[in-house]
């Protein structure tokens, strides 16, 4: 699971108000190189919750992202590279996503987060 996906997910258990961002419990993190696509990054930038991304990256050991970011920073190749790396190249292979409110764990195995709820959570 890349941090792009993490940035889009929340705990949707019935009754949970603040299900975002999910805390990451990492057992195995891998890095996979991906071709950099500046257009894609510029498109997606405004949809990203920046704080959640930079915090998630830090919790996985990548502390290069600034705490705040704005559109104009996309002109810098250096920033684009870091944004790209954090968003698409860091993979949570094994671990869990933890609901910030209830502590319910959504397991991540072989890179696939299992976001399905139990019967009593819907």
């Amino acid at each position: 699971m890349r941090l792009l996906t993490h940035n889009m997910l929340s705990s949707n258990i019935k009754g949970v108000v603040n299900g975002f961002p999910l805390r990451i419990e990492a057992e195995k993190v891998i890095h996979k190189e991906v071709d950099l696509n500046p257009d894609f990054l510029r498109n997606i930038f405004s949809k990203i919750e920046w704080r959640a991304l930079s915090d998630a990256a830090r919790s996985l050991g990548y502390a290069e992202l600034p705490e705040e970011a704005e559109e104009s920073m996309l002109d810098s190749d250096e920033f684009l590279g870091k944004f790209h790396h954090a968003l698409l190249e860091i993979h949570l292979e094994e671990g869990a996503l933890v609901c910030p409110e209830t502590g319910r764990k959504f397991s991540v195995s072989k890179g696939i987060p299992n976001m399905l709820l139990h019967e009593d959570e819907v």
Partner: protein
Amino acid sequence: MWYLCVFFHRLLDYRRPEVEALAELFQHNSSNEPLEWRVPENHHPDSPFHFVNLSSDDVARDIANRSLLVKGMYELWGEGSTLEELEQAIKSYPDERKSPYLSSESTFRITVDSFGKVMSFEEQNNRIQQLAYIPFEGRVNLKHPDHKFWLMETDDHGGNNGLPPVVQKRIFFGREIGGSDRTLIPTYQLKSRKYLGPTAMDAEMAFLMANQALVKPGKLVYDPFVGTGSILIGAAHFGAMTMGADIDIRVVRDGRGPDRNVWSNFKQYGLPMPVGLLRADNNLPPWRPGLKEVFDAIICDPPYGVRAGGRKSGGRKLLKGVVGPYTVPDDKRTDHIPSTAPYSLVECVHDLLDLAARMLVIGGRLVYFFPVLREDEANVGNTVFPEHPCFELISSSEQILSSRYSRVLLTMVKRRPYTEEIAEAARVKHTEFRENHVKWLEDGNIHSSVFTPADQLTVSGDTKPLRDLKPKYRGKYV
């Protein structure tokens, strides 16, 4: 400028919409005016020969090269019902349009092609000899010519590949601008794919869907019923970032081993991996509140209900449903899917439209298959498709699967933003589905009735006589 657009004689309903979608992709006019089309004199709309008005050679070439169903785009130099008429037409075509392609420095090739008949090699040569009135000065190069010319003719008797007979034969001569690359299809064919599911989308259709969705590099494409990834492979081939979800974790996570899973399917073709795969229920999507307008396209083949039994794994609730405000209306419901199956289909479509309305960018496209029961002759052709206040339906292409069923590829464009009111209406509907679910379960066993065997099919209590197999012509079966 008008171009002769010659199609392959297959998937007839999909041909014009594909060209229209690609024209929007390559022809950068924001006017949103529909493409102009016409068919040659005496030709039926299902004929492979069409004329289309495009802004330039470059656009025509881009469309033809990317298309799956366009055999070629041609600058027409002349047409006629007889060879004499053709000669007149070619001679009167302006010299300044012709001479750049006839010069002595260039190489050329003439191909003779026919529709509805076979011409012997001798006849073909004969035809080429008869074109001696065109002042070709360049050298012939059969393998890699600079300019390709085509002489194409239709047959003028009897059967015509299942089309209504052409009254009079027509001969076309033109210069090729571009042609489709169908080598994609054998490259991506399902039989050599490592990991397949029971409903894997065939390669040609996956590419057509990607074209309908205006897929191009840098776009983010989502498939909520990803399965083995067969639809996303088409989108990834055209350069999109892909993301998929499925309710069945065995499919998305495990596949059939380390080298036979969704990832390996992308690896097999050297395509970039999906940027995200997750297990999620389309009925209760886990997207964070406030997340909207992230996907450029949503492309999918929703479960029609035939597989609904498989979706209740892990003690999950069964699919459930009722007719929604922007889904299949009551009077059409029984006509669509036998017995209680529309429950699953209807709710699934409701959820899909709601998801797409929220998650697509303005101008983004939702491309999906919708099943139609061809039970009632009168019903064919005026089926009511799902509607949504955010969306405009821009094309529907039918593919007949059997005498009873067909599926229609719907392309919808998001025109209006997802408002609070629409969200609220969708939420109410969602709750209604949930609350009534148990009751519907008690009324009938959804699991066993989702797929009613053909000979038991009844509609609202009246047993309808089985329809005769009587297609008027083979057109759509091609």
